[in-house]
C-alpha cells in the first residue's frame, strides 16, 4: 500500500492547473435534419416488419432527454416461435442451397450498405443509447462494417479455415445482444453466423432496439432471403423464450454474468451449443517505467469510453506506489477536461447513462464505495438538467475486499489501488471472479510480455486500451464467459466440423 496519506491529493498550496477556461467550445450538435425515424417499429420476421401477435408494444426513450423516440413491438412466445420457424425454413431452403461465394457477396453488400448509411446509423445509436456521437461515428460504425467485411471474406474459404475437415453450418442461431454497443454487437453476432451459412433470430436489448431494426432494412436491401435473419424485440422474457425454444441449435449471448448463468442452466442437457460473453472487472496495471502521460490517456479511454458501459472496461486501476501521486494528479486534471453532456454534440466525451435503472445501479455503487471507505473524486463539469448522467468518477483508497473492486459497476467509475512489486500487481489483478481483459503499462517490452502472459484474462492490451479489430479473437476466462468472437476463432461456434475420408467423400 502507499505510505503517503491520500495519494492523488496534491498538497495544499501545490501549483494547480485551471481548466475552467475563459475560452471553451460552443455546442456543436450533429444535424438530425435528414433523419427519418418512424413512430413505431414492428418485429422483423420472415422478411417483413409486423406487429407482435399480442399487439403489445414498449417504448424506447432517449436517455439524454428522457423523451420517447418510438413504440416498438414486444415479441411474445408466439412471435419467437414464428421467427424460429422462419429461420428454419430459410436454412432448409434458399439460404442453405446458396453457393458459399453468393452468400459471401451478400455479406459484403451488407458491409458496404452499413458504410453508406453510417451517419444515419451513428446518430440513431447516439439518440437511442446515449453514447457520444464521436464514438458511434468513429468506433461503433466503422467496426460494425469491418466485422461484416472480415467475415464476408471467410464465406467461401471455410475449407482453408479448417483444413482437412468439412465445416457445415449449425442451423438456427438464437442471438441475444446487450445495450452498450447495439449495432456493433449485432454485427459481431450476425457476420460470422451468416458467413458460415446459419440463419438467425436476433434479440436486441430492450433499451436500444432501433439500430437493429434499421439494420433489418439494410439486410432486405442487400438481398438477404426472407427468414435468414429475424429480429424479435423485447425484454428479458423474450430472450428467455428464444433460449428455451427447441428449434434453436445454438445460443450466443452477450450480457451480464447473472443472466449468462441462467442461460447456461436452461441449456444444460439440451444439446444446444452456446457461447457466452459476460461481465468483466479488468485490471489496468501501470508500472513506474511507463510513459505516464500516455498511460493517463489510456486509463481515461479504458474506463470512460462509452460511459464505462463496456464489458472489457479497465475498471480497476493499479498504480505502482512511487508514481501514484504524480499519476493520479495528472489523471484528475485530465478528467477536468472531459465534456459530459449531449451525446449528439461532436465535442462530448462522456454521454448519457443508458437507462434510469443503470444510473440507479451506478449511484448505489458510489454510495457503497464511500461507505466502504473509498474517497470519491469527480470533476466539476456541468451536467444537463434532464436525462441520466454520471460524472466520471474515481474511487480512491480502495482495497481488494471492497465490493466496488469485486463487482462490475458498468459505469464511468474507476477504483484505484497502489502496489509495490510486480508479483503483488499480478496477484491482485487475477484476484477476481472475472477474466475478460486487462491492461499493462510499461516502457519495458520484456516486462509487458511477462506480466501480460500471467494475467488470466482473454484480452490484454499493452500500452494501449480498448483497441478492437475483427481479426482478433475476443472472449473471457472464468465468469467472463466462454467461447471466442472475432477472428478465425469466431467461426468455430457456428460450424459443425467433420472429416474428409481419404477419397474426398464426407464422413
Amino acid at each position: 500500500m502507499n505510505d503517503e496519506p491520500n495519494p492523488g491529493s496534491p498538497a495544499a498550496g501545490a501549483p494547480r492547473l485551471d481548466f475552467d477556461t475563459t475560452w471553451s467550445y460552443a455546442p456543436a450538435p450533429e444535424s438530425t435534419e435528414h433523419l427519418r425515424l418512424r413512430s413505431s417499429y414492428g418485429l422483423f420476421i420472415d422478411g417483413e416488419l409486423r406487429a407482435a401477435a399480442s399487439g403489445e408494444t414498449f417504448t424506447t426513450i432517449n436517455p439524454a432527454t428522457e423523451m420517447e423516440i418510438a413504440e416498438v413491438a414486444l415479441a411474445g412466445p408466439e412471435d419467437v416461435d414464428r421467427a424460429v420457424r422462419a429461420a428454419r425454413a430459410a436454412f432448409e431452403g434458399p439460404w442453405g442451397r446458396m453457393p458459399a461465394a453468393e452468400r459471401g457477396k451478400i455479406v459484403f453488400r451488407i458491409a458496404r450498405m452499413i458504410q453508406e448509411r453510417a451517419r444515419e446509423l451513428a446518430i440513431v445509436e447516439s439518440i437511442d443509447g446515449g453514447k457520444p456521437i464521436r464514438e458511434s461515428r468513429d468506433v461503433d460504425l466503422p467496426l460494425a462494417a469491418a466485422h461484416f467485411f472480415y467475415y464476408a471474406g471467410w464465406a467461401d474459404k471455410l475449407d482453408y479455415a479448417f483444413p482437412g475437415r468439412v465445416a457445415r453450418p449449425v442451423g438456427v442461431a438464437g442471438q441475444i445482444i446487450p445495450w452498450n454497443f447495439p449495432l456493433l454487437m449485432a454485427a459481431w453476432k450476425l457476420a460470422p453466423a451468416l458467413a458460415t451459412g446459419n440463419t438467425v433470430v436476433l434479440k436486441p436489448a430492450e433499451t436500444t432496439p432501433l439500430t437493429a431494426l434499421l439494420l433489418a432494412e439494410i439486410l432486405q436491401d442487400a438481398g438477404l432471403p426472407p427468414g435468414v435473419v429475424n429480429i424479435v424485440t423485447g425484454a428479458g422474457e423474450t430472450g428467455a423464450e428464444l433460449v428455451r425454444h427447441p428449434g434453436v441449435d445454438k445460443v450466443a449471448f452477450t450480457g451480464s454474468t447473472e443472466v449468462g448463468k441462467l442461460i447456461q442452466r436452461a441449456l444444460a442437457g439440451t444439446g444446444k451449443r452456446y457461447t457466452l460473453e459476460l461481465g468483466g472487472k479488468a485490471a489496468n496495471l501501470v508500472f513506474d517505467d511507463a510513459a505516464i502521460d500516455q498511460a493517463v490517456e489510456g486509463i481515461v479511454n479504458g474506463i470512460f469510453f462509452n460511459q464505462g458501459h463496456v464489458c472489457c472496461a479497465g475498471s480497476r486501476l493499479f498504480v505502482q506506489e512511487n508514481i501514484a501521486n504524480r499519476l493520479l494528479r495528472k489523471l484528475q486534471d485530465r478528467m477536468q477536461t472531459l465534456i459530459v453532456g449531449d451525446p449528439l454534440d461532436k465535442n462530448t466525451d462522456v454521454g448519457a447513462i443508458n437507462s434510469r435503472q443503470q444510473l440507479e445501479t451506478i449511484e448505489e455503487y458510489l454510495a457503497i464505495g464511500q461507505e466502504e471507505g473509498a474517497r470519491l473524486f469527480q470533476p466539476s463539469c456541468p451536467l444537463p438538467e434532464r436525462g441520466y448522467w454520471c460524472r466520471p468518477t474515481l474511487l480512491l483508497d480502495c482495497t481488494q475486499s471492497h465490493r466496488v473492486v469485486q463487482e462490475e459497476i458498468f459505469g464511468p467509475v474507476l477504483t484505484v489501488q497502489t502496489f509495490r512489486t510486480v508479483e503483488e500487481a499480478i496477484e491482485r489483478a487475477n484476484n477476481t471472479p472475472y477474466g475478460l481483459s486487462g491492461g499493462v503499462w510499461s516502457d519495458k517490452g520484456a516486462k509487458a510480455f511477462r506480466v501480460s502472459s500471467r494475467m488470466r484474462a482473454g484480452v490484454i492490451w499493452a500500452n494501449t486500451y480498448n483497441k478492437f479489430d475483427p481479426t482478433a479473437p475476443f472472449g473471457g476466462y472464468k465468469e467472463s464467459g466462454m467461447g471466442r468472437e472475432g477472428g478465425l476463432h469466431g467461426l468455430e461456434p457456428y460450424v459443425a466440423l467433420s472429416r474428409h475420408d481419404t477419397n474426398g467423400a464426407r464422413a
Partner: protein
Amino acid sequence: MTTSTNARTGGASPPLGSLLVPIDEVGVADRVERLTRRSIKKGPKLQALHMVLSMIDLTTLEGADTPGKVRQLCAKARRLHEDPTLGLELPHVAAVCVYPSMVAEARRGVAGTAIKVASVATAFPSGQAPLEVKLADTRAAVADGADEIDMVISRGRFLAGDYAYVFDEIAAVEEACGEAHLKVILETGELGPLDEVRRASDLAIAAGADFIKTSTGKVQPAATLPVTLVMLEAIRDHYYATGRAVGMKPAGGISKSKLALQYLVMLRETLGEAWLTPDLFRFGASSLANDVLMQIVKQHTGIYQSPDYFALG
C-alpha cells in the same frame, strides 16, 4: 567552460538522472488525433482567432531581408487589417521576429507600441559556432533593443549525449540575455524520436528557458502537433514540480487558422487557463496572420475574400 549562475537555476547542474522520461509515440498520436476532433464554431471560434493573432511572432528570417522589408513587417504588425465597413477591433501581434542585424530597425518600427522585438541569435539556424561567438551574437541583439532572444541548441552535442555542454550553453546564453526573455529552439526535426524531444525540453527548462520552441523553420519537419504535445507535457511536469510556468512556441509550418486552432485546443486541454496568453504561448509564423484575418472577416460577412484584400507583412 564554466557553468553560469543565474536566478532561475541557482547554478544547478543538469538533472541528468531525470532526463529519461519515456514517451509512447503511439499514445501521443492517439491523443493528438482525439484533440484534433474538437469542433470550434461561432463565438468561441472568433474568440480563438483573435487569440491566435495576439500570439503571433510575425517573422522574417531570410538572407535577403533588408531594413525596408523589416519596416514593412513592423507596419503590418502594428496594423494587421483595416476594414471600415466592419469596424473590426483587432489585437496586435505579440512580437516581430528578425535576425540580429535587423533588431535596431525593428525597434524603431514598433516604437510606441507594446509589440515586442524578438531576435534569433546564437548562430541561427545551425548553431554551429563557438560559444563566445554565440554569446556575442546574443549580447549584440540585446544591446540593439531585443526584448526576446530565440536561441538554438547545439544539436550535434545533444545527439552525441553531451547534455552537460548543452545545459551550460543555454545557461550562459540566458545570462547573456540579461533582462531579455529567452526562447530555446530545440529544432525537433533534427532530434529523432519523441523521447529525445522530451529530453531536450527538460534540459532547456532546467537550464532556465523562459520559452521552449520547436523549430527554426529552416528544417523539415518544423512544428508538429505530436512534438508540441510532448513539449507541453514537459512544461506541465515542471510546473507541477516547481510552480514555474514556462512558455511554448511552435514555429514553422503553421500557416492555416484551422491548424492554429488545433494548437490552442491542445494548449487548453493540457495546461489550461493560465497558458492562454501571449505571455506563455506564441506561434512563430509568417503567413498565418493573413489566413486568420481572412477567417475573421469571413465570420463577420459569411464570405471569403480574395487574399488580395489582405496586405502582406
